Each structure stands twice: as C-alpha cells, then as structure tokens.
C-alpha cells in the first residue's frame, strides 16, 4: 500500500461506512454555553484582579498582532487567556517530552542539545567519514543534516532514533547517502534480512540477500516506485538496535530542478550491505 492507495482506501472506507445520525447542534451549543458559565465562575473564583492584571499584560504584549494562525489552526504559541480553560496548545493536551540538558522538557521530539543531540551529530560525522574516496561531501546545513528524535517510552525507557544525511558529489553530479539508527528497545521486532530492510520509510523495492561476514543482509537494489533512494540495506544487532543505510544518485529537491545526478552510486551493493554493519553506526 503506497500513499495514493491509502488515500483511496480511506475514502472508500468512509464512503461505505454508515455513520450515525449527525450530531445535534443545539446540544453542542448548550455544552458550549455551560462551559462558558463554568469558565466565568472559575475566573471569578480565582481572583478577578489577578486575572485582569494578566489580561492587561497579555493585551499589551499582543497589541498590533494578529492571531497568527498556522495551517488554518490556532497560533503557534498559546493565545492570551484569562481563564482556566486552555487554548489547544496549552499544557492540558501537551505531550511531555524528555528532559533536555537544561533540565526543562524538550519542545518536541527533536533533541536540540545534549547527549542525544551529540549522538546524532557524531552519526553524521561517521557517515561522512565512510563516504568512499573520490566522492566529495559539501559542507553546510543544506548538504549535511542530523537529527536525534525521541520515539517513545517503552517499559519506562526512552527510545531514540538518529538520522544523518549527506550530499555526495562527483564529476559535477550530486547524490546523497543516509543512515538511520533505531536504538535498542525499538518496535521493529525481530525481523532481519529483507523483512527488515523493506520496512525502511515504507519504500517498496526488489530486495536480495547479501552475505557479509556470514550474516545475511537484505539490500533493496531497485525501488519499485519510490524515488527517494536507489538502494538501501538494514542490519539488526543482537541487542535490537536497527541500522538502515541508503544511497541515491539523485538529490530530491522540494523546490525547483534538482542538481545533476551522480553517474554512479557511491557504494556497490556489497559495500552498502557491509556499511549497514559499520560498528560506528551502532548508536546506544
């Protein structure tokens, strides 16, 4: 199932699913009014003077600014409120992210400093260091990227994943390489070989086993329809850490025409399989 098939399947599902009768607008309005009464009661009970002071500060702070809605939604930062009813972005529905190096929770899943961030940074350095001789790796934020991302808390343990990508150049062409590591405790389960490799980013392709030091590595050497990468491989360590490595001749560009493609991929299929077992990528 690809993106278009899922889109179609969702529509088909909702077309053939009989929905209950429409919800009652009068009841919704009644609930809204009751909530407003409770809101006002809470406001009075919590001290009108304090609330007014907050309100005055909020009005001053936001004077001249529009609501700055994003994607048709609420503002990126909570709107000023004088009540106990939070805006959608307030803490009432907010996920608690892992604590960052400054002792405060992260803003979102991505670590922007600290030990996990540093692991992602080192992963990028190791990825660049593994690029074969004869290929260049441009510098700069557009050409090199790394990210450490909190995935979930499983059995009380924070599970992280790390990704690094780099552009690679040769003879005027530009392609890219990537590595993604899911630390031990991830939810990939036990598959190895092609069963593991074909889980990478949901991309389909022709997968074949390649033996490296007696271990069978699944390598997709020809994608079916997805053109984000040309080849990718995966390896699962005994502790459960999963490493995906990938390479593409063509740099995907969201804006404008992509640069000229590489003539040849940086790695052979065997080399890519071996790269997935690079101990430097075994991020704990």
């Amino acid at each position, binding site marked *: 199932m690809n*993106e278009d098939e899922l889109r179609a399947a*969702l529509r088909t*599902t909702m077309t*053939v699913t009989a929905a209950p009768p429409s919800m009652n*607008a009068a009841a919704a309005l009644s609930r809204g009014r009751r909530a407003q009464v409770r809101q006002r009661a809470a406001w009075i009970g919590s001290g009108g003077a304090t609330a007014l002071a907050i309100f005055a500060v909020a009005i001053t702070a936001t004077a001249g600014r529009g609501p700055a809605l994003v994607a048709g*939604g609420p503002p990126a930062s909570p709107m000023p409120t004088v009540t106990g009813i939070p805006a*959608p972005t307030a803490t009432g529905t907010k*996920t608690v992210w892992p604590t960052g190096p400054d002792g405060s929770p992260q803003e979102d899943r991505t670590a922007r400093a600290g030990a996990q961030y540093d692991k992602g940074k080192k992963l990028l350095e190791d990825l660049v260091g593994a690029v074969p001789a004869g290929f260049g790796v441009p510098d700069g934020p557009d050409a090199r990227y790394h990210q450490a991302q909190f995935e979930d808390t499983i059995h009380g343990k924070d599970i992280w994943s790390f990704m690094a990508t780099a552009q690679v150049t040769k003879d005027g062409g530009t392609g890219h390489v990537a590595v993604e590591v899911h630390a031990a405790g991830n939810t990939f389960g036990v598959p190895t070989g092609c069963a593991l490799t074909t889980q990478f980013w949901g991309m389909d392709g022709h997968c074949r086993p390649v033996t490296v030091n007696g271990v069978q590595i699944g390598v997709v050497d020809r994608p079916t329809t997805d053109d984000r990468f040309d080849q990718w491989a995966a390896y699962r360590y005994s502790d459960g850490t999963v490493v995906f490595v990938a390479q593409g001749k063509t740099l995907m560009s969201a804006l404008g025409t992509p640069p000229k493609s590489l003539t040849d991929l940086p790695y052979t299929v065997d080399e890519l399989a071996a790269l997935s077992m690079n101990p430097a990528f075994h991020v704990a």
Partner: protein
Amino acid sequence: MRGNKDEAFAEYFIARSDTMRATAYLLCGDWHRAEDLVQVAFTKLYLAWDRVTRHDSLDGYVRQTLIRSFLDERRLGWWRRVRVTGTLPEPDPISYPPEDRLDLLAALATVPRRQRAVLILRYWEDLSVEQTAAMLGCSVGTVKSQAARGLAALRGRLTLIGIEDA
C-alpha cells in the same frame, strides 16, 4: 452579540461536525469516542470563538484541538481498551467487502497514535507536510519519517491479515 455568536457557531457546527467526526473516527475507530472528541473540540471552539476572529481558520482550530485531544497521553489507557470494530453500525448494502473495510480500520488502530495522526492528516485531510508539521508541533522531517513509518506499519499489518501481498 451572543445571539450572533450562537447562530454562527451553530451554523458552523452543522456544516462541519460530520467532517470532523469522520476524521476522529478514522483516528480512534469508534463512533462514540469520535463524537466525544468532536464535542471537546467544538466546546473549546465556543469558548475561543471571540478570539478566533478569522473564521476561515475555524477548521484548523477545531482539527488541531481534536488531534491533540486524541494524542493526549492521559487518555492512553482509554484508547487501549477500545475495541476498534466493536461499535460499528451496519454498513450500507453495497458490494465493497465489509471485512476489508474493517481490516483497514483494525490495521490503522495498530499504528502508533502519532504516526496514525500523521497518516490521517496527510492522506485523509490532505494537509501538506508543512501544515501537518505545524498542526502537530514538530519538524517537517519528523512528519516525513512518521508518515513513512506509519505506512510501513500499516502495510505490515495488512500483510499479516492477508490484505496486502507479502
């Protein structure tokens, strides 16, 4: 003033609540819970009505409230107890195999909640990657990776139950 607000709110509710409920249903697979999510979202909208002055953004406000309520981890225990297909009404008598429809919903229910939210926003609501990132408060890269993993998880589940070829 209140009359105008109430009238506008009711009109908007009539126009959009079914659509929002469908999104909620795909997220949680249960009509009753979907209506709970819609009620929460619209009640918050009523309270915020005067502040949400750009009415063409009402959809975004309600959608984001709904999504974030769904993702609220304090309700996690409730979600895990929900039987995905337990309260489905009878489908219309047309030729689409009902078991495939139920299988898709059941498979969706196995996708981690955040990935599921990305899938629904991207492929049901047809939001762009950037809009989805803004709605979920995460990076564009995170949306891409979560979408890819969600699709992979969904595909894996459908393969297990024989809807997709292995």
